[in-house]
């Protein structure tokens, strides 16, 4: 009996196994991570709501995907953080969150990191962070921090004294690279920081900008083919063209239009 369960994903990010397309962006990010000294050091992804930024980050940080792209897990540790889950947000809670994630992922001697976290009253200092990532680099490792919803971080930074940004920038620009950053926000960094006063090197200058746009027709067709496989329901050429036109290739709108069409077709099949 065919399975008429709707395979389309409306609303949340897609899991890595269902990730389609974005080959150019994926390659650009992995190439930069694999490079010993990329310039600029970080990557900043931007794109409108539901365009697929979080799905892309989830795909990048999947260990199997990274390994296939030549980034072995013994060397590269991916830490995904949705900045909204750092509550309440303070520079100290931000660093503590990162350090706790490093302990969980066993990137470096957990006793050393736990000693940094031990005194809850004492702030995690820049020297300690600097030393930590240098030691990680000395072991031939790289921590890739994927910071989703980066606006949340920016919201809590003083435009006249953006300390947390200066520290992030310094950490990714060290000669021995122990930390890499992939940021994600709706607006590009240049727009996010238009009111900021950076003393010398502006924060956005340390990042390559990647803007996520709609899917191409080929990507949309591939998504439909992959998702409907084994469901017992097929979309005709005309239907594929129609959902692409309706959605204009926007991933969320495309999944939504496909969901509607799938539901309709499943009802007809059942009837």
């Amino acid at each position, binding site marked *: 009996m065919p399975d008429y*369960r*709707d*395979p389309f*994903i*409306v*609303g*949340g*990010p*897609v*899991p*890595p*196994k*269902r990730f389609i397309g974005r080959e150019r962006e994926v390659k650009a990010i992995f190439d930069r991570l694999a490079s010993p000294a990329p310039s600029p050091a970080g990557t900043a992804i931007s794109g409108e*709501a*539901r365009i697929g930024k*979080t799905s892309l980050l*989830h795909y990048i*940080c*999947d260990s199997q995907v990274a390994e296939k792209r030549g980034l072995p897990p013994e060397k590269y540790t991916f830490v*995904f953080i*949705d*900045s*909204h*889950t*750092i*509550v*309440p947000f303070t520079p100290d*809670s931000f660093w*503590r*969150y990162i350090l*706790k*994630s490093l302990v*969980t992922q066993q990137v470096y001697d957990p006793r050393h990191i736990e000693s940094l976290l031990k005194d809850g009253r004492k702030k995690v200092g820049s020297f300690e962070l600097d030393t930590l990532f240098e030691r990680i680099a000395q072991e031939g490792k790289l921590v890739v921090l994927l910071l*989703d*919803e*980066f*606006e*949340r971080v920016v*919201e809590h930074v003083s435009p006249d004294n953006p300390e947390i940004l200066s520290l992030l920038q310094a950490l990714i620009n060290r000669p021995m690279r122990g930390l890499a950053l992939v940021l994600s*926000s*709706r607006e590009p960094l240049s727009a996010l920081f238009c009111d900021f006063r950076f003393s010398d090197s502006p924060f956005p200058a340390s990042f390559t900008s990647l803007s996520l746009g709609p899917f191409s027709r080929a990507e949309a067709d591939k998504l439909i083919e992959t998702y409907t496989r084994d469901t017992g329901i097929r979309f005709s050429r005309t239907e594929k063209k129609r959902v692409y036109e309706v959605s204009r290739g926007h991933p*969320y709108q495309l999944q939504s239009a496909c969901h509607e069409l799938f*539901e309709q077709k499943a009802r007809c099949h059942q009837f």
Partner: protein
Amino acid sequence: MPDYRNPFIVGSPVPPELFIGRKREVGIILDRIANPAHGSTAVSGEVRIGKTSLLHYISSPEVAKKWGLPPEQCTFIFVDSHAIVPFSQKRFWHYVLKSLAARKAYEPTNYIEDLLQGEDIGGFELGELFDRIARDGKLVVLLLDGFEHVVEHVSPDNPELLYLLRGLINRPARGLALVLVSSKSLTELCQNVRFVGSPFPTSFTSLSLGPFSPEEANKLIDVYTQGTGVTFSVRDRDFAYYEISNGHPYLLQKVCFKLFQRHVEKRQKEGRSENE
């Protein structure tokens, strides 16, 4: 002897075995949860339209099992947000964690108990808990009834709890899915909340519960009156559906309750006359 006990349910949610209709809505919610993305849904609908009954139904083990969500893999936690009094973010998470511990959603349960002993339950700790649940091949589905009560208690300029909920369902390891229920749609509920970055409602599939169709209403009457010895005529059904309830589940149950009562009284009266 026929059983004249009135089978209609007025005012409270119907138990899963007496749940009728809503096939499309049940399919959408459970398809989303069963999908590898473990998607979340927001259900809205006017008072007494059957939102809570729907939550009870989808979380019953027999139903969830049909979608490949057996109790050993998927723990449904029903929380009526109004039961968290006085409401605070801390109490909310305590309530959820206590429910998880009680249902043994993650073992060893002392991990959750340790979290409850801690001073503050932060985003990291919650994220780690749901990641662990996901790594064990399990999923927690949190059914939050009366979600307006939650939104009412978040700061419109810094909706931390909503940020956290959204962040937890959007983690790479998906250990949590949400089904939210409120009278107003999520977009309407959150219209005065200022979100930095992704707005909370965009992470949910929206579903609006409407009245029953005439077919659903007829099925309800058939199922409920079965074995009672009372049959509703076409006239009764038309009166209940078109003249009184317009398919609103609460009004339908109420008018059917009264019609049933009237039928029984009539029969009892007829019985007494025969005896005399």
